[in-house]
């Protein structure tokens, strides 16, 4: 969380959600939609975009109103704001495509309780000026969408042999069905977490260590 009091808008404001504080791969937040709706790339993308919209819109409103909200009722207020934008996106998805709406099921409405959004409202949007809050929320949303796509892409590829609905492997491909079932979500998430941790570890090993410190323990 940004503890710095400086008000400058930097690339970091956006990129920390994308990479250093990625909500899924680093903070492990919002696991419910991450595991549940990533059985295809299209579902993952739609869920990511819907969550990004709610993040950005509620971040803006919370940041604008933060000064006027008494702290005793702030959580209730944030939830009402978030629920409003979730309802908007719920109607919008129904208007765009019923198939998509049925595929995402209850998880659209459940964006309300996604801890990334309330967490951002409480820890960031309410303490920063609107522009910064919006940029940061967009970064978090992009990071969340990226993570969902990582899972959705792999699961659809292995579990159905297609990507975004396009058949890639032809009729002889025997789908690895478990990948589009709930256990596949856990397997693929585990795989990605391993990869990201390994990348982080390797990044640390190549950095010169401060004097007197070894890699494993002090």
């Amino acid at each position, binding site marked *: 969380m940004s503890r710095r009091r400086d008000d400058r808008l930097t690339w970091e404001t956006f990129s920390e959600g994308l990479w250093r504080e990625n909500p899924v791969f680093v903070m492990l937040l919002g696991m419910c939609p991450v595991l549940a709706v990533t*059985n295809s790339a299209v579902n993952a993308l739609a869920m990511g975009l819907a969550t990004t919209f709610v993040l950005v819109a509620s971040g803006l409103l919370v940041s604008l*109103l933060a000064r*006027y*909200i*008494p*702290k*005793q*009722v702030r959580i*209730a*207020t944030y939830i*009402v*704001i978030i*629920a*409003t934008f979730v*309802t*908007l996106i719920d*109607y*919008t998805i*129904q*208007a765009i*495509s*019923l198939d998509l709406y*049925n595929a995402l*099921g209850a998880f659209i409405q459940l964006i309300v309780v996604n801890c990334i959004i309330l967490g951002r409202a409480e820890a960031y949007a309410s303490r920063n000026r609107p522009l910064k809050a919006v940029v940061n929320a967009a970064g978090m949303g992009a990071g969340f969408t990226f993570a969902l796509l990582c899972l959705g892409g792999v699961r659809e590829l292995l*579990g*159905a042999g297609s990507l975004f609905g396009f058949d890639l492997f032809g009729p002889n491909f025997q*789908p690895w*069905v478990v990948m*589009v*079932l709930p256990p596949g979500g856990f397997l693929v998430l585990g795989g990605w977490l391993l990869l990201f941790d390994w990348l982080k570890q390797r990044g640390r090993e190549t950095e010169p260590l401060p004097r007197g410190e070894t890699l494993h323990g002090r």
Partner: protein
Amino acid sequence: MNAPTLQPRTPATAMLVVLGGIAMLSGLLVVLAAQLTAPRIAENQRQAIERALVKVIPGSVTYRRYKVEEGRLLPAGEADDDILYAGYDDRGRLLGIAARAAAQGYADMIYLLYGYDPGCECIRGIQVLKLAETPGLGDKIMKDPDFLKNFEALDARLDAAGTALLNPIVTVKHGSKRNPWEIDAISGATISSRAVGKALNRSAQKLLPAIHPLLQQIHRLEEKG
């Protein structure tokens, strides 16, 4: 942590004003969104039903909605329960009747639309409207070609008294279909296959005896309209 603070207490009115204001703003936005999207959503639903109707009543181009109440045929709206759709070809001849059916599947309720052809007294096709069956197993009932072959002409004749089906529609074990009123289950998706049979039997047992005496009216109504 919970020691009394020295900060001035927020007056209750401020909280009420903020919560009330936010709630009003929220209500306004939600109503606006509902109003703006309602026509598109209704249109999407109509298209979804029509796409399914074309498949279960092959060759049909226009549709009328009806419901049967106490032996009488009444026009119905999309929102009514137990509606049935009469499908006509381009010259206004009745081709078939479609209705919804539902039964408990493996994961959740399976909702179907099925088409009944009064000419052959058989079911001509099914379309899944909504299901939550296991991908790769139960959801085969939507596209498995061998399974869908069951519904090219599934026997649904009425008995002599016209009060029930002559032979109840049943799902039988994979590979043991002998009669035209039996549905050959998909192996590996037996529960979902059985649910389809159960849904069709339950709905047909109720709908077909009720609709049969009224079939002439459906023809006639179309001529008038």
